[in-house]
């Protein structure tokens, strides 16, 4: 893509119109454009996450209400003399308990998502600053250091595997295959491991 037309012409007289735009054009370098795009991606992610937080908060409030209603029904059924009706109610409550347990696991993925996207946002910000530093971004060793710093950021197994793959030169298609495989594994076994020391 030819972006040369965006470069300011040094012979042009100072513009009197949109000063913000003039300042943006004066500062034009390919690195700054990359940096701006990365910052934009980071900001979009933050905005989307903030919106999701509001929705998830509402969802959790509703979920809390459902659980409390279930608990109240459970207490009531325990106080009621046993008959066919209470047996049926207890059966329904048991089914509700199983559904609740599945929802508790699913809700935790939102927390994991927030955490993972937080790491991506940090990576984008770090890269945005890095590319603007021509001295650093021109050196292979500095890139190695950047990757090493970002690697420490990724804490979950999924993040680490993906990072190692991509930094090792995997293609986007290979990454997609890996993600599909991981998702399949997750469907079969959604919960984490436990270790007692």
């Amino acid at each position, binding site marked *: 893509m030819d972006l040369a037309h965006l470069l300011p012409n040094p012979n042009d007289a100072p513009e009197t119109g949109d000063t913000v735009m003039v300042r943006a054009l004066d500062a034009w370098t390919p690195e700054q454009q990359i940096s701006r795009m990365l910052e934009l991606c980071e900001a979009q992610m933050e905005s989307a996450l903030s919106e999701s937080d509001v929705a*998830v908060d509402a969802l959790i409030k509703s979920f809390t209400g459902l659980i409390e209603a279930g608990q109240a029904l459970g207490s009531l059924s325990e106080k009621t003399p046993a008959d066919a009706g209470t047996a049926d109610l207890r059966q329904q409550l048991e089914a509700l308990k199983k559904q609740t347990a599945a929802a508790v696991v699913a809700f935790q993925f939102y927390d994991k998502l927030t955490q993972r996207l937080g790491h991506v946002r940090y990576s984008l910000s770090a890269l945005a600053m890095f590319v603007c530093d021509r001295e650093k971004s021109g050196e292979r060793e500095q890139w190695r250091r950047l990757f090493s710093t970002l690697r420490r950021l990724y804490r979950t197994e999924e993040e680490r595997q993906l990072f190692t793959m991509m930094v090792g030169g995997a293609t986007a298609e290979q990454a997609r295959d890996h993600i599909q495989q991981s998702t399949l594994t997750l469907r079969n076994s959604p919960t*984490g491991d*436990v*270790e007692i020391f």
Partner: protein
Amino acid sequence: MSGAASHTSRVILAVDDSASMRQMVRFTLESAGYKVVQAVDGVEALDFAKGNAVDLVLTDINMPRMDGITLVRELRGLSTYKFTPMLVLTTESGSDTKQRGKQAGATGWIVKPFSPEQLLSTIARVL
């Protein structure tokens, strides 16, 4: 939603900076009859623990102000918490971090997401 009678005297301190995680832990533990006290980070948890007795600490790792591993180490330094079970509940599964947790004095390690059944059985094992 039932079985709330057996653990009514046990107090669990749940530490996590994520409100949704604290809620999920609270639902799970209260439904089994535990009393749950929540803290948003290590500093708040440590302040509470210094003035109150708890039967078990369940903590996340990455939190602002004070992380979970530091919290475990600080609590182990207090005579009242020398033998209190302390479980780490985290998305981290790396052996290095786990080793640091173990050295700090953690009793066990649970990788998120937890299932209510799994969390309760783990707690029952260490209490």
